[in-house]
């Protein structure tokens, strides 16, 4: 099987290479702009033929020496009011009133407009045609002047975007409510607001031959390991595909073990979580068009850490941490254990329990293993329906699910009541560690099958193979199961418990930059003066 997997892997990589060679001809070459405005206009019109959302406005800069000009922008991506007030009006009206009019001629027109007329903060001079196109497509407005082979790019972007709302994932009781939005710039601003530090770097890339999606690699210089940053850049630059529509696309192109069902790239919708991860030395990848930011390296243990653990006091947070591990084991193993115990190892059940389970199983038509698989599948169907259906119908589904499957099936003796209990317990428990919910679902079925075939021994073999697989994984060079395996004593305290913040003196050993491990001074434990006033 391993051979076969390798072959599969090779197949994937080789097909990638092939594609790359096919498309290498279409790489951009430098095409300078013409100094003839008609030529430029023609070229633009030609490029954007049949694109109804393109707006080209030809006009004359009415100075002493009139100059032909036109602006190009894409309707819907710019703020029209701003274009009229801050671009058209200065060029068509204000220029006459200013002193600039006197010095204006064909030679220095561009410079004067750039330096004295345009009351805009972000204007760039671009000489290349394709670069200009990129800017226009990103929502900038291009101004062409007759006689100049340089276009002025005015950033007057403005489009309808979603408000910042509390995200549906990573819900917290205590902690910031804001989430990322689909607009990249807003997301970076949210991060910048959290970390006001020049070392916070946003390196921009464009990925996707057709979509030209903006992608930002965010990290904190000095904390993030350069090797990891370089690795991220290397993997991102290798992506040569048509479209990046969501960060999930990127995830699938850069993950370490694409054939594993365990995620080795993390994602989050919340700026505070991403900021916290970057402060531990992780690298974030923000993608335009999605509120989900990726973080690497991603370790298994992160699924059990909630941002709220760190915002609330450590005692209950530690209990919750342990509870999440328990919930994980319940959600993965309980149906399998039920099957194994009731079909292979009845002697391991306490007598009273065995009798009541036996009483409930009496007269049910299916073997326990089939029952478990059936109920598992029904639960997955209910879950999927609940997510996809419109909200009012979704409620109906849950009622039908609870009544028909829970009540009626049991009272009709189609399914034993303990199985319903096990499945609902599993379902609830799996939402405690919501971020690896998909993996948990897959594993649950695998274990049920193994338990049906070989009882506890089957579960054990499955667990051993799964564990071996887990420890063999790496995420951007960091062992997936660290700090449990390999044991990193320093980090181990933030695994099963959440230590007080004043005790977490060091950054994660395997993630952060080696030379810069210290997060804070030791002995930060609060120690208020004893002689207080009565």
């Amino acid at each position: 099987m391993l051979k076969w997997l390798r072959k599969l892997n090779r197949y994937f990589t080789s097909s990638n290479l092939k594609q790359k060679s096919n498309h290498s001809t279409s790489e951009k070459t430098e095409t300078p702009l013409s100094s003839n405005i008609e030529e430029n206009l023609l070229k633009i019109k030609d490029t954007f033929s049949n694109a109804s959302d393109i707006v080209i406005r030809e006009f004359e800069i009415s100075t002493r020496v009139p100059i032909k000009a036109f602006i190009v922008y894409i309707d819907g991506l710019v703020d029209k009011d701003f274009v009229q007030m801050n671009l058209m009006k200065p060029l068509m009206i204000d220029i006459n009133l200013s002193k600039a009019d006197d010095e204006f001629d064909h030679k220095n027109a561009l410079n004067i407009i750039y330096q004295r007329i345009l009351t805009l903060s972000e204007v760039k001079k671009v000489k290349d045609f394709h670069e200009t196109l990129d800017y226009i497509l990103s929502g900038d407005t291009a101004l062409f002047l007759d006689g100049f082979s340089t276009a002025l790019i005015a950033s007057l972007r403005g489009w309808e975007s979603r408000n910042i709302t509390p995200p549906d994932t990573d819900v917290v009781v205590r902690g910031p409510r804001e989430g990322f939005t689909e607009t990249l710039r807003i997301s970076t601003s949210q991060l910048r607001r959290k970390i006001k530090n020049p070392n916070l770097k946003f390196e921009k890339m464009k990925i996707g031959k057709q979509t030209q999606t903006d992608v930002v690699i965010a990290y904190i210089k000095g904390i993030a390991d350069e090797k990891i940053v370089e690795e991220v850049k290397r993997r991102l630059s290798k992506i040569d595909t048509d479209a990046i529509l969501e960060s999930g696309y990127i995830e699938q192109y850069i993950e370490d073990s694409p054939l594993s069902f365990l995620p080795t790239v993390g994602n989050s919708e919340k700026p505070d979580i991403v900021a916290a991860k970057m402060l531990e030395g992780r690298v974030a990848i923000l993608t335009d068009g999605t509120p989900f930011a990726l973080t690497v390296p991603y370790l298994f243990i992160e699924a059990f850490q909630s941002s709220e653990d760190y915002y609330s006091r450590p005692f209950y947070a530690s209990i919750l941490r342990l509870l999440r591990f328990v919930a994980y084991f319940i959600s993965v193993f309980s149906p399998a254990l039920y099957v194994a115990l009731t079909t292979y190892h009845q002697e391991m059940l306490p007598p009273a329990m065995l009798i009541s389970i036996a009483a409930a199983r009496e007269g049910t038509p299916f073997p326990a293993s089939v029952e478990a698989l059936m109920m598992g599948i029904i639960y997955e169907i209910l879950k999927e329906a609940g997510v996809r259906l419109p909200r009012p119908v979704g409620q109906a589904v849950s009622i039908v699910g609870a009544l028909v499957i829970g009540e009626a099936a049991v009272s009709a003796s189609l399914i034993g009541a303990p199985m319903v209990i096990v499945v609902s317990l599993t379902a609830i428990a799996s939402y405690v560690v919501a971020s690896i919910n998909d993996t948990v679902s897959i594993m649950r079925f695998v274990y049920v099958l193994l338990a049906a075939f070989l009882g506890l021994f089957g579960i054990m073999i499955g667990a051993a193979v799964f564990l071996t697989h887990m420890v063999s994984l790496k995420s951007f060079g960091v062992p997936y199961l660290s700090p449990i395996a390999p044991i990193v004593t320093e980090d181990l305290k933030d695994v099963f418990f959440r230590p007080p913040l004043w005790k977490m003196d060091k950054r994660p050993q395997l993630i952060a930059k080696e030379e810069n491990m210290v997060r804070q001074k030791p002995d930060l434990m609060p120690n208020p003066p004893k002689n207080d006033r009565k």
Partner: protein
Amino acid sequence: MKRVVSVLLLIAIMSTALAGCWSRRELDTLAIVSAMGIDKSEEEGKYSIAYQIIQPNELKGSSSPDSSSASSKGVWVLTSTGYTLMDAARKATMQSDRRLFFPQNKVIVIGEELARQGIGPLLDFLNRDPEHRRLSWLLVAKGKAHDIISAKHEQENIPAQAIDNMIKSSTATSMAVKVNLNEFIKNLSTPGSDPVACRIEMIQDNEAKTHKMRLTGASVFKKDKLVGFLDQNETRGLNWILGKVVSGVILVKSPMDENKDVAIEIIRASSKIIPEILDDEIKITVEIEEEGNVAEDLSDIDFTSSEMLYELEKRKAQVIKNEIQAVLEKAQREWSVDIFGFGKAVRKKYPKKWKTLQTKWQDLLPEVDVEIKVKAKIRTSGLSTVSITGR
């Protein structure tokens, strides 16, 4: 190479899948045995075994305690005979549509007649077969084991559950022994000790004209053969020596009025067996320390007087001593069985001398001088110091 690997993989997966047919057993194909009674069969050399099988179907409706009407029966008794236990168990499947399932078996009852012949051969199967737990209680029925197995119990749907609870709660009187298979086998195989087992019998209930099962002390074995029974007081005597008295009531005659009783509750007790060998004379001292509270006083004792308490303590010590004497008389002197573990104590203290003593321990035992020292104390007299009619 690739092909070899894939073929191997296929074999592995197929063998895993096929394994489902081997050791799997659905719950509704099992007849869960809750108790098992072994008797001698009328045919020579055969055992007759009664299995008490739980019927989950019958128990299904009676989840609430008040619905356990007299008509609902939670168990079914199946009888089977065979030349060995395994033989009988397999022959039982001729009458049962389900396979007998033993791990939840709580009670093993052995008939008196069979026990007198020796139960060593039975224990081999119970010890060897992985399906049997060594935590099942081992009881000897005075009479037939079948009667015990087929008896009903008013409180429990499963009579075995009742026996289990009766044995567990026998600590309230300390007048029964709690012996499971493991302990029995351990005592049987340890040199210098003989096993005991619990004793159970059907007692006629005069008013209701029915029979009820009751724990009535202990049954004493010499090696693996039953030699006799101890009654309840003698059993407590045995428990005193073994240090297994947990609680119970001691009745003493009141110092105020010899016709009236005072009940003293045992709070805690411990024992020590101290062997001594002086010039080939073996002497064993049993030291008992006991503490109790006055629970009930039928005479009018003034508990503020310390002399009264001393007197009570003395009388209590005498009662304990008598109980011990009684059991020593029977087991040590009459039957010459070492159910007290005296031999074990000697072996621990004098490992060298024990080597020579071991072989003739049977014969030496009745001659061994056993001294009993009892320290009995009374801690409190309950909530009242004088009786209501006292003043």
